[in-house]
């Protein structure tokens, strides 16, 4: 079981309040992603849950048991760090065995669990190596192995893929997702990468300056961002936020149009503009269009076969039923 409840949890470093009182419930078996720009307090929040930082106020409960003042080891949580944090002087096998050794689990059971974890993570051939002799992806797998054998109430991941190269990151993303499906254990995952958040999460928690901006499933956040910050943060490329769009505004201070919800044509459309930069990904092309009569540059996604280059004239038409409207405070208008 791994239900984690945060009740008015806050954190200050000296005079600086990095996390104002905050409530959050993470259900058993959920894959929750904390996402936000750097410095938003997402890692601090994770460390508060882990017990590596003391809370300044409020209460943390794990499976209804108060855990606010428990030391990290007593919380039954396992953590995977960005830097892997493997013990460099121990072999892979000893690294994985370490938490079991600390818990006083009998040798025979340790052996069995190590073998299971190594088989699941493709580490069987590397058990006698030192971390220094492994690649980044393998090291991260060892770190995950060390977490799995503890059979924790929840896994905590602190930007675990940031040190890997792009190709490996996609592979490890899938592995972690599969692991979650298999173990069905609560996972809390911190990242600044909204693609990781969208692809892995059951529930995303968007944070800014220690404040939760919105909690919801990836598609909820995508379809109904609660405010301008979430609207701009979720989705790639970013949603176009436009202020002076005439009759499309319908009383809103700002409207949001996603690049994928805007049609482009060479002959006709609502906004006439000139292509600035065009990014050709092969499958898709992103056009950054200027001189549309709007104050903002508009980004639009077109098919890979759409032929438009720097300086070409294009016409853009947003899909009206997919326009997001926000009031002067930046909040969504229902």
């Amino acid at each position, binding site marked *: 079981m791994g239900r984690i409840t945060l009740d008015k949890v806050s954190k200050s470093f000296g005079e600086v309040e990095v996390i104002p009182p905050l409530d959050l419930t993470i259900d058993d078996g959920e894959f929750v992603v904390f996402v936000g720009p750097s410095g938003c307090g997402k890692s601090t929040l994770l460390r508060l849950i*882990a017990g*590596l930082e003391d809370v300044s106020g409020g209460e943390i409960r794990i499976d209804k048991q108060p855990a606010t003042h428990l*030391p*990290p*080891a007593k919380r039954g*949580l*396992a*953590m995977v*760090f*960005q*830097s892997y*944090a*493997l*013990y*460099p*002087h121990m072999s892979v096998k000893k690294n994985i065995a*370490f*938490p079991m050794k*600390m*818990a006083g689990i009998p040798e025979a059971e340790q052996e069995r669990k190590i073998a299971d974890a190594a088989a699941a993570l493709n580490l069987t051939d590397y058990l006698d190596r030192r971390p220094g002799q492994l690649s980044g992806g393998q090291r991260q797998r060892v770190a995950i192995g*060390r977490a799995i054998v*503890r059979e924790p109430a929840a896994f905590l991941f602190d930007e675990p893929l940031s040190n890997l190269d792009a190709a490996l990151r996609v592979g490890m993303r899938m592995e972690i997702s599969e692991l979650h499906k298999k173990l069905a254990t609560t996972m809390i995952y911190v990242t600044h990468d909204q693609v990781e958040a969208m692809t892995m999460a059951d529930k995303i928690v968007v944070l800014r300056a220690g404040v939760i901006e919105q909690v919801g499933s990836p598609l909820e956040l995508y379809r109904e961002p609660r405010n301008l910050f979430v609207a701009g943060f979720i989705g790639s490329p970013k949603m176009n936020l436009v202020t002076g769009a005439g009759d499309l505004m319908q009383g809103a201070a700002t409207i949001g149009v996603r690049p994928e919800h805007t049609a482009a044509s060479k002959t006709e459309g609502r906004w006439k503009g000139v292509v600035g930069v065009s990014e050709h990904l092969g499958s898709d092309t992103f056009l950054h269009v200027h001189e549309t009569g709007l104050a903002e540059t508009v980004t639009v996604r077109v098919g890979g076969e759409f032929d438009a280059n720097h300086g070409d004239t294009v016409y853009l038409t947003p899909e009206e039923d997919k326009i997001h409207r926000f009031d002067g405070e930046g909040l969504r208008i229902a």
Partner: protein
Amino acid sequence: MARAVTTQRKTINTIFAWAVGLLIFFPILWTILTSFKTEATAIADPPVFLFFDWTLENYAVVQERSNYMRFLWNSVIIAGGSTILGVIIAVPAAWSMAFVPSKRTKDILLWMLSTKMLPAVGVLYPIYLLFIKLGILDTRVGLVVVMMLINLPIIVWMLYTYFKEIPGEILEAARMDGASLREEIIHVLTPMAVPGIASTILLNFILAWNEAFWTLNLTAAKAAPLTAFIASYSSPEGLFYAKLSAASVMAIAPILVMGWFSQKQLVRGLTFGAVK
């Protein structure tokens, strides 16, 4: 472009390095040579360098006149004991300063180091009185404690520098993995810091071995180490250079050999953290 190093330049550099090395080593070499001379050759003017009648007589006399092994054993106990005791005390201290620093940590470190700038003679009198009161004058225990206290700032400082290099996340991982503070220090921090701890031990062993002020002032006969052994050969009725040299060679030989074999470790230790 890589800097071109010509053969000629290399040769000059090599000669220069050897010259500096010899200059530094010369006093020790001279002591060793003198120890094999007769007293008359030792003070000959002009000095003789290599071509004299080599003799082992001085060593025989020194052996005969004093119990070398007892001094050696005292030195080993005092240097070894104070170093080990110091490290045991310094590891937790350095741990807390490196991993749970407070606002005052830097100040405390500097303050600790500043005690090394105090002239030792300034505290000789109180410590001497304390030793008398406690009845530990001329005992190995007393010297082990004093030597440990003298070198503790350096041990703490060195260990602190090594510990700083160890990523805090690894210790946090140990904490998450269920290690208590003691287990964290024993199973994770110490093994990772072994090279640093080794060179700290080495350096402090050498410092304690060579320390003369306290050993001379706080010992008489029973606990006297090799420094006192050398000093006993600078007698009031005149210096016997050859015998003094023989005694010196016997006193520095063990530490010289040890230093020779561990020089790599020592250099690494002293420059650790200097280059990222």
